[in-house]
């Protein structure tokens, strides 16, 4: 059913205001707070995905040439799992948590109550346009909020499919999709939201946070950066290589916030590593990877040009040791490996977000920690090693959103781990219960009784009261007794 807003030709500030007003009215009326409502919405989302898998796969193919396996597993299956987990666990998540109380407030009881924030805005990205749109929405629904979803215009087929499906399956008086680009997003950002979650790059992240600051709206920013992979020697090289390939080219052809961006390994090990890559890449994608159906394409000509600029820089193009082929008309670049590109090259100073994998070499594996810490904090850092001490040092020393030892990217699928960045890679986290928490306000509640009203709290203030107060705040029964007896010092 088309709403008033959709009938208007342009989605402007007034349209955005109307949308927020409608959702706020729904929220205030208690629609989204209702537990059964949350369950029916989540079930509707599951049904939506079950009944539309071919259409979703087709839209993702249109937008990204995403292989069917990636669409089915990394987008649809992951979303369904997220929905099912919320349906299963929500009854526990919504329960208030008891909190301990201290001697000083005896007798009292305390709890922490989760309540919805209100009307929230989810702005998602183009690379996993289904997952990054609906996964936050699952959390927002479970927490009882009304929601506006703004999918990315860079994946337009998926955006418009989402708009259609959400309107057909879910409660449009509480959950809306607004399509559009910069003007529409700007109009939305002018409004007052109770929370904004943004997935994308740091430049826009700053704009989102600045807009939120005007209304004191809290934000979650899922950003990116360069995710390094440290490769030590003495490992199962074949498994490590396969896992790196799966995390790099197997994830939307490197266009993922948690894709391995570059590799750090020792000078001694580099050659062996490169050979292993050549072998496994050919096994996975054949001798003509530009023709492989198992690789997404580069999303659009802007990004294609951007990637070529990184690849064709003078001091970089000579460092290609595998790949480098490109097909402009189909927006494809073959899996490409580069060895020892200079630190001051473009490719080493911006997030690659594509199928190019530089390998830089150092003398000792431990040197990689300082190297990584000298840059901005990554969203993820991966390390392949069997050395126990090295693992411990890695976890202790390296600061990043998430760390994975002996694999890449899989931590995303782990709902008991908070997924999010730190520093330039973002703020806030979600997945599993963390999604529920991120879209909730944790309200502190203290229940006091009228019994035991201590006069020492109130004026007139005397030295005796001061003594007793000190003892009470000190928390020791003996101290209190001494103060009552007048034995302690003031």
């Amino acid at each position, binding site marked *: 059913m088309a709403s008033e807003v959709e009938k208007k030709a342009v989605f402007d500030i007034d349209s955005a205001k109307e949308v927020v007003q409608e959702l706020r009215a729904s929220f205030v009326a208690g629609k989204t707070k209702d537990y059964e409502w949350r369950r029916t919405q989540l079930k509707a989302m599951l049904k939506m995905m079950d009944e539309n898998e071919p259409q979703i796969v087709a839209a993702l193919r249109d937008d990204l040439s995403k292989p069917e396996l990636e669409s089915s597993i990394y987008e649809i299956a992951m979303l369904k799992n997220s929905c099912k987990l919320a349906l299963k666990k929500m009854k526990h998540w919504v329960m208030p948590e008891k909190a301990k109380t201290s001697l000083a407030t005896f007798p009292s009881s305390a709890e922490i109550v989760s309540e919805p924030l209100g009307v929230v805005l989810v702005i998602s990205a183009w690379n996993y346009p289904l997952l990054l749109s609906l996964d936050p929405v699952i959390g927002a629904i479970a927490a009882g909020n009304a929601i506006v979803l703004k999918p990315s215009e860079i994946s337009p087929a998926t955006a418009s499919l989402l708009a259609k499906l959400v309107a057909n399956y879910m409660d449009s008086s509480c959950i809306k999709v607004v399509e559009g680009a910069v003007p529409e997003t700007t109009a939305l950002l002018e409004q007052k939201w109770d929370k904004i979650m943004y997935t994308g790059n740091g430049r826009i992240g700053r704009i989102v946070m600045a807009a939120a600051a005007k209304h004191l709206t809290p934000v979650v920013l899922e950003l990116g950066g360069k995710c390094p992979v440290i490769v030590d020697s003495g490992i199962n090289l074949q498994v490590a290589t396969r896992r790196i390939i799966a995390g790099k080219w197997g994830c939307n052809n490197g266009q993922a916030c948690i894709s391995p961006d570059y590799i750090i390994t020792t000078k001694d090990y580099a050659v062996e590593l490169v050979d292993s890559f050549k072998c496994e890449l050919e096994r996975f994608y054949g001798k003509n990877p530009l023709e492989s159906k198992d690789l997404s394409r580069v999303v659009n000509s802007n990004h294609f040009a951007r990637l070529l600029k990184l690849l064709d820089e003078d001091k970089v193009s000579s460092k290609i040791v595998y790949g480098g082929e490109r097909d402009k008309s189909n927006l494809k670049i073959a899996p490409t490996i580069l060895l020892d590109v200079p630190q001051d090259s473009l490719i080493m100073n911006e997030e690659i977000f594509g199928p190019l994998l530089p390998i830089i070499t150092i003398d000792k594996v431990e040197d990689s920690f300082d190297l990584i810490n000298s840059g901005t904090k990554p969203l993820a850092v991966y390390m392949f090693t069997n050395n126990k001490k090295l693992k411990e040092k890695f976890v202790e020393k390296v600061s990043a959103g998430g760390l994975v030892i002996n694999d890449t990217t*899989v931590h995303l*699928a782990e709902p008991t781990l908070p997924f999010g960045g730190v520093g330039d890679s973002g703020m806030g986290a979600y997945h599993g219960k963390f999604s529920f928490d991120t879209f909730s306000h944790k309200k502190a509640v203290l229940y006091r009784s009228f019994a035991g009203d201590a006069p020492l709290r109130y004026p007139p203030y005397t030295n005796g009261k001061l003594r007793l107060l000190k003892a009470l705040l000190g928390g020791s029964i003996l101290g209190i007794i001494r103060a009552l007896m007048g034995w302690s010092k003031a």
Partner: protein
Amino acid sequence: MLSSMEKSIAELRETFKNGGTKSISWRKSQLKALLQLINQNEDSIFKALDQDLGKSPVESYRDEVGVLKKSVTYTLSCLEKWVAPKKAEVPLLFFPAKAEVMPQPLGVVLIFSSWNFPFTLALDPLIGAISAGNTVLLKPSDLAPACMSFLVETIPKYLDNKAVKVLAGGADIGERLLQLKWDKIFFTGSPRVGRLVMAAAAKHLTPVTLELGGKSPAIVDTLSTTPSKAKVTAKRIVGGKWGPCTGQACIAIDYVLVEEKLASTLIELLKKTIKRFYGENIKSLKNISRIVNKHQFQRLVNLLKDPNVADSIVYGGSVDEEKLVIEPTILLDPPLDSEIMSEEIFGPLLPIITLKNIEESIDFINSKSNPLVIYAFTEDDTFKKRILSETSSGTVTFNDSMVQYRYSI
């Protein structure tokens, strides 16, 4: 050529980078040193608070020194537990993987504190930042200058100067600090400045914690229970309004909601309690702070200038500009669109708003922006549940005031 401010911050970054704040033993030593600072300087702290705000030692101990001692002691006892990684369950699909969530310090943290609880609001966040392993720059409010000077002079004598620094100054220093990149900013103050802090932080993608304020109401539904409960209610309201810095506290009771038919009972009880606690009139006022400065004094006096507001005064109203004192003042049903009912009062003026039925208080509160605290004096369990589920606030406290902060864990 770096300014001394930039050099200080560079030193904090260097200390963090070199791992100077990482070890549990360092963090514990700093917390113990802070405890020593408080224990050994109690009198100077009381003196500074008296100078800046006219706080009595009991108020100063209850709301500042005592709170801080408790906070440090609690942190010391829990630190090892807080620092330890937490195991996370791993689904069968990933067997045999292990997972954990590991707390890590953010880096260099900026703390802005406010003038009304100049020790608590500066040192309590500092305790958190140190226990998490960060280096810190603390910028106390210059509107409590004696307390600010005390912190500037005393902290370097007890804490690690390379990791914890205190900077004196006013809004201009604050603005310069906000231009720089921090790993976290912790701000306590007004929503207006909170917006500026967050906007500045946005440029560097710096996460912020903003402790702001608002109008914290007290719903009163216990006057017709028993006389003793009514008396305790009155004491707790008076204690929760004028007790903390004469109402200049983010969690002070801002205004009261009560049923029409019980308004006069409440007012009589409040008057009796005020006189007993604070004295008969403005000349004999005691056990109460003063207004922090002329600017705040004028702001509060202006709230009473509107003739409709002035007409609604039922107790108090006298002011002493020289001593910066406004006596505890009660107003009955000032106009709802007056400034006193739309701005956070942050002072010793207590509007009482009457309703036909106490349940209307829920809609009344919801018509305004979310308060920091809702105080509800009621023994009706159904009403309690409704308040909890139908209103939104930072905290809800039933049948008391202020304690949730002072004695919170």
